[in-house]
């Protein structure tokens, strides 16, 4: 999957699952915590993004994905 498509998935999953969050390219490098994504939302976002991209993200890998960009890169690499 190319980066652009992965970014679309991640942005849409963040907006879908985190109340009031509007995503834009300039926010992709921010930590999820700084974007107001709490620990439970993070689990949901990573799970939903993985499912939408058709990939499995292990618990260990998921723990390291603390910015939208890192999730995008992970998906794009698969």
């Amino acid at each position: 999957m190319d980066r652009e498509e992965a970014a679309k998935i991640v942005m849409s999953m963040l907006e879908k699952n985190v109340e009031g969050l509007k995503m834009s390219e300039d926010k992709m490098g921010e930590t999820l915590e700084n974007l107001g994504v709490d620990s439970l939302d993070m689990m949901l976002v990573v799970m939903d993004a993985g499912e939408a991209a058709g990939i499995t993200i292990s618990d260990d890998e998921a723990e390291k994905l603390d910015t939208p960009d890192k999730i995008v890169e992970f998906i794009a690499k698969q």
Partner: protein
Amino acid sequence: MLGIQSIASYLPKGSVDNLEQADRFETDREFVEQKIGVTTLPKFEAQDSVVSASIAAFKSLCEKQSIDPAEIECVVLCTQNPDNGGLPHNSALVHAELGLPEDCACFDIGLGCSGYVYGLSVIQSFMAANGMKKGLLFTCDPYSRILNPEDKNTCLLFGDAASVTLISDTPRYTLSSAKFSTKGAGSAALHKNGSLLEMNGRAVFNFALQDVPKQIKRVLESAELKMENVDLFLLHQGSRFMLENMIKRTGIPADKAPIRLSETGNTVSSSIPLLLEKELDNSPGTILMSGFGVGLSWATAIYTQVK
């Protein structure tokens, strides 16, 4: 035919203010209230035990239902945190306290959050195979005994409770269909390390949201029912956030799936019976129950009202 005749529960008098616990763990109170969904956790006091809580639940059952102890032929108790390390099996201690007859089968089963759905099937099958007419299924899993006081992932979540269900040949609800699943390879997600509970929250969350909905749908299919044919969905009360998302992902009508853990927390195998006790007064026609957790183990069953 055997089935559920009546049910009662017991919450210990001791409790923990979960919002004060949130402060102790430097966790946002709103997160604990809205996302975990728990403000108070019932907790065993020093004098409480699996046996005493089970007896208290039985006394509560006797207030609703006339029960002759001499007629009880089977006692099954579900716990993974028994008194005296489970030796003797706690159902035998309950048997003694209740003064039940010698012609009464007693055994414990060790399951966590799937325990009630499993336990119902186990006791009904055992009783049917042996021609028994009245039995008691207890659940009591005091996780406060195994919580690490420094672990906010578990301390903010689990509460203590007990329940008892009267199984009889004059039931209000009988089993229509059930499925039982296990993913032993994932068991590290919820396990005891030494004497304390450890939980991988993400692994449990993924399991609950990815595996359990599939089983719920399979049970409905095998019973040839659709979501709209079920009057009540009793889902194990793990946390508010997990339940809300499970309901959404499974396509369950939210008004049919109560989320009621604010004053109890996650009471393991007692969470479904606590809900069922409250809901039975409304006489739902068809009930789907789904319990999931330690194991990883999950079980879903459909019970229908006897007309």
